[in-house]
């Protein structure tokens, strides 16, 4: 059998196939666009009866999504690897912005989470998620040779714990939990030893028990009472009918929606949506029974109006988004990219699961947004920045693979 002549190595490398020149991951982009469209459509329902301009929220959200998408495209053209060297700067920006919010911030719902700019109220903790992912990833990469050492694990945890404490003080418990989740995920993916991870898990359990049970018992309130209440409300899904009027009174007094009332109303909204949604008959969300149905509880608006079908579609889009993120994690050309993707995956998974779980009554009420769906510029733009980083990792991975002759799918 005659052998075909072997091509000489001197030949120039083959031109990249057309597909590989696609500047973006098509499925990731598709998921993002799909979620953006769903967000706008759902917001139309959730905010229809607000007294001001009925399209106010929809228009603003569309603008945020547009700006975020543009930023995503921009970042996808950059090489994320260049950010690695500046991680200390980013970490400093993270801490300073959170401190700035604490100092200058504008209080909403009993929490100081944002600085109001003329067109935009800047929520540092949202952007902080991306900054933290980048900084921690770079820190881990820097110590790549000492990954299995306890020292590395502790340093990463401390680096995450400082901003976490600062946002919890704001108080924005939800973001704090996201930060810690990101740190754990990064350690996990970076290859920290199982022993460290087990110790970490034990530590988490002990600190939860301490914060919720032990500390209040001796009179130290690490969390504000309303936070504890939110965290534990879902455990007694309860007797809401009787408690409802009481809760409403309290809400009138404190301006803070009662978590169990909120969750009950949200469950009614989603449950009443049925298979295909209540459509124009929807009442829970349009008539204001579900508080914060435009932000944290937007999934209730979706579930009521479009039912199991609509909720399922959005969940499928999230599944696609997360699976593509994990795919980017695996295909990344370097550890830094993998870690960034892992951090973003952690952020997305945690927020989707906790937020949706909270609206359907299986998770405590924490102020965690539903990425890309919830109304809010900071959250939308931060998430899209993250997706931009994923795109960049994807593009770089394809480019380097092409250079190396590897075929990546």
């Amino acid at each position: 059998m005659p052998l075909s002549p072997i091509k000489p190595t001197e030949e120039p490398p083959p031109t990249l196939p057309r597909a590989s020149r696609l500047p973006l991951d098509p499925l990731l982009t598709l998921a993002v666009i799909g979620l953006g469209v769903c967000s706008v459509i759902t917001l139309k329902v959730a905010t229809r009866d607000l007294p001001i301009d009925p399209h106010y929220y929809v228009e603003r959200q569309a603008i945020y999504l547009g700006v975020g998408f543009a930023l995503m495209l921009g970042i996808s053209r950059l090489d994320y690897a260049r950010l690695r060297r500046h991680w200390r700067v980013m970490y400093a920006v993270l801490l300073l912005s959170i401190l700035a919010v604490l100092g200058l911030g504008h209080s909403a719902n009993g929490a100081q989470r944002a600085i109001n700019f003329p067109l935009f109220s800047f929520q540092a903790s949202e952007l902080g998620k991306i900054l933290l992912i980048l900084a921690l990833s770079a820190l881990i990469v820097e110590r790549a040779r000492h990954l299995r050492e306890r020292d590395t694990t502790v340093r990463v945890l401390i680096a995450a714990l400082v901003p976490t404490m600062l946002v919890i003080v704001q108080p924005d418990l939800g973001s704090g939990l996201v930060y810690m989740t990101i740190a754990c995920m990064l350690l996990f993916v970076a290859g920290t030893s199982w022993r460290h991870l087990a110790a970490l898990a034990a530590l988490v359990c002990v600190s939860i028990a301490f914060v919720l049970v032990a500390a209040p018992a001796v009179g130290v309130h690490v969390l504000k009472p309303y936070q504890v209440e939110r965290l534990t409300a879902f455990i007694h899904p309860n007797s809401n009918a009787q408690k409802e009027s009481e809760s409403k009174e309290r809400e009138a007094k404190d301006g803070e929606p009662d978590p169990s009332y909120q969750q009950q109303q949200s469950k009614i909204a989603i449950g009443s949506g049925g298979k295909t949604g209540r459509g124009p008959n929807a009442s829970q969300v349009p008539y204001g029974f579900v508080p914060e149905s435009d932000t944290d509880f937007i999934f209730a608006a979706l579930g009521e109006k479009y039912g199991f079908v609509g909720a399922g579609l959005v969940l499928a889009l999230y599944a696609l988004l997360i699976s593509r993120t994990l795919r980017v994690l695996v295909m990344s050309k370097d550890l830094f990219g993998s870690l960034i993707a892992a951090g973003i995956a952690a952020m997305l998974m945690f927020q989707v699961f906790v937020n949706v779980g909270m609206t359907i009554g299986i998770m405590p009420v924490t102020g965690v947004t539903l990425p890309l769906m919830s109304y809010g510029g900071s959250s939308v733009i931060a998430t899209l920045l993250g997706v931009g980083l994923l795109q960049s990792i994807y593009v770089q991975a394809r480019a380097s693979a092409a250079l190396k002759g590897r075929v990546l799918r």
Partner: protein
Amino acid sequence: MSAIEPVKPRDPRVPVSPQLALRVAIISGVAMVMFGVIFFRLWFLQVLSSEQYVSQADAELARHLPIAAPRGQILDREGQPIVGSTTTNAVQIVPEELPPGISSQVAAYQATLDEAEEARHVALARLSSFRASLGGVRRLTHAQHHELDSLRRAAAPPRVAVPPLPASDTALAGLFERLGHVIGMRARTIDERVVEGMTATPYAHVTIKTAAGSGPLTVLGERADEFPGVVQEPVSIREYPFGEMAAQILGYVGQVSEPELKQPAFRGVKQGTIVGQAGLEYYYDHYLRGKPGVQRVAVNAEGQPVPSKLPPTPPQAGYSLQTTLDLGLQRASEKAMQEGMEHARAGGKPAIAGGFVALDPRNGEVLAMGSSPSFDPDKFAKPLSYREYAELSSGANGIPGRLTDLADEGEYPTGSTFKPITAMAALEAGVITPSEGLGSGQCIYVSTEPFCNAGHADYGAVGLVEALKVSSDTYFFEVGERANAYGNVIQNKAHELGVGEPTGIDLPSEFPGVVPDRRWLAEQDELETKCEAAHHGNRCYIVAEPGAPWTVGYNMDLAVGQGELLTDPLQMAVAYSTLANAYRNGGEGTVVTPHLGKQIDERSGSLLQTLRFPSRHVHLNSEDLGLVMEGIHDAASEPGGTSADVWSGWNQELHPVYGKTGTAERAGHVEQSWYMCYIADPKHPIVIAVTVEEGGFGAETAAPIARLIASQWFGVAKRFVAGSSKTF
């Protein structure tokens, strides 16, 4: 893998090591589990339990407003409506369409109301403890009266003034001003009704005026945009085609009050429902009320109504009550009362008030019944002011309030109309024999205390029949004196015939009456003792002389229907009915339960239920009864009879009259005129009872009224013939 990797990257390149692959697989697994959990939870919520949540969502959304049911009619015995329900276009206000100033006003009003309510509860508690401290005392000292009055006033349902409109809200003030101009009401009155209405039933329309007339309604309809929040809605209201006729009997309606909601009679009644408040409207409310429908109004989380298409449940109209009243007789009787009272006034008597009853003696059907002065129940069909109500309910200068039905709520001695009862008792007990001559002279003396005939007449010693005919007081004083030795013979007979007992008539607030006897006196004495103990030994005047024993004087006064006897025309009519039907049946009589209700009809007019009332059998000695009846027949027909001249020209053959005049003496009052009669007829016998407070002698005022009533009943020409008898 790394073996064939040709290039060593400068970065710490991590190829997909088994370690990383494992960890990513774990992450993927966790993600899949999470999505799985969410998916199944959604499946559970949205597919399996969807219906439950839909109904919960609807329940959150809907507020239920009652749609008033048209009340059943009240008909006379022939089925002609005497109280109707009519639908009229009412001017209503839709609160949420008003300019926003109203809500702050409502909030301010609600706050004051809550305060007042709190104060009232304090006063109520103090009142009840004060009452408890008084015990069974009947007459109070001046200071106690004062204290009790002020506490009562404080414990009455609060009357809170509506705060003035916020001056800034010119839109609201302007609207009320314009509306008031169109429908002829003061803007302030409209504002008050709106605020009160919104406080009582927050989501319901507030009725401003029920009968605005077609002119204003047209104006409002044509210029609807100038009157935001003003609508016209058909409402069902009470209609009284005969005005004041039988007003106290029929009663009136009004919104159910807070205390009424706690009564068993109003169990299940929704707040704001129109219910019967008095008379037949109250007694038969259960039938007349109907069942309110439900209008479902969708509201948002703030409680503001939002448009929706929730289906209403239509109301069910109430049943009609057919009464035993004879419309013609009722109208004629009331006219006769007017005529008689005017005549008395022309004769210089005050004739301040009066009541009458016409019964069918066979079965107790009330053919006509009424009280004068009357009131216009239509006033209660519309929003009624507190002052108007107070004027109607409380009397002044000794005149009873117009809302009181004197026929069954009066409390009077009866004068000589009681004598047939005394006679029956004495004869049956063997106290006297019919032919025995008694009562000669002008007065009877009991240990120097004189008991005299009216005008100090001397009838000589007369027999029973003659004594009844001329109404000899001395005769009956003697009977009473003798009967005292036999115990409570007169009292027992009175109770047996139905005097001093609740008659069981189908009206609320019937007066039970008092027939004085030894035990009653002992009870009164005990009350006096208790009262004095509670008042540091001060006299309470429950009895004239504390500790004084029963004397023969009590019995003598009772024998002529005076003294401590307290009864009303209805009880007397029952007693005379018993005499009458026993007379017709050879001594076997029935004590009937007088009643106004005949049957309950469906809205369509078909019979739903015939109302039945129990009666009690009583045996009277027919011989004795014959003598008594002869006596009172003579009184109404024979020359010299007390009311014979009143019945002059009456066909006694066809419709023999058995009638007895009465003139009750009440301290501090002009004599009260009484007349009781039974007029026999094979088909339509009738017992008529008439009394006129401060109307003079029985023959003078009450008897002629009775004749007018009888004339109407038997269809003969009406003549007002005042009698001349000056007997008691």
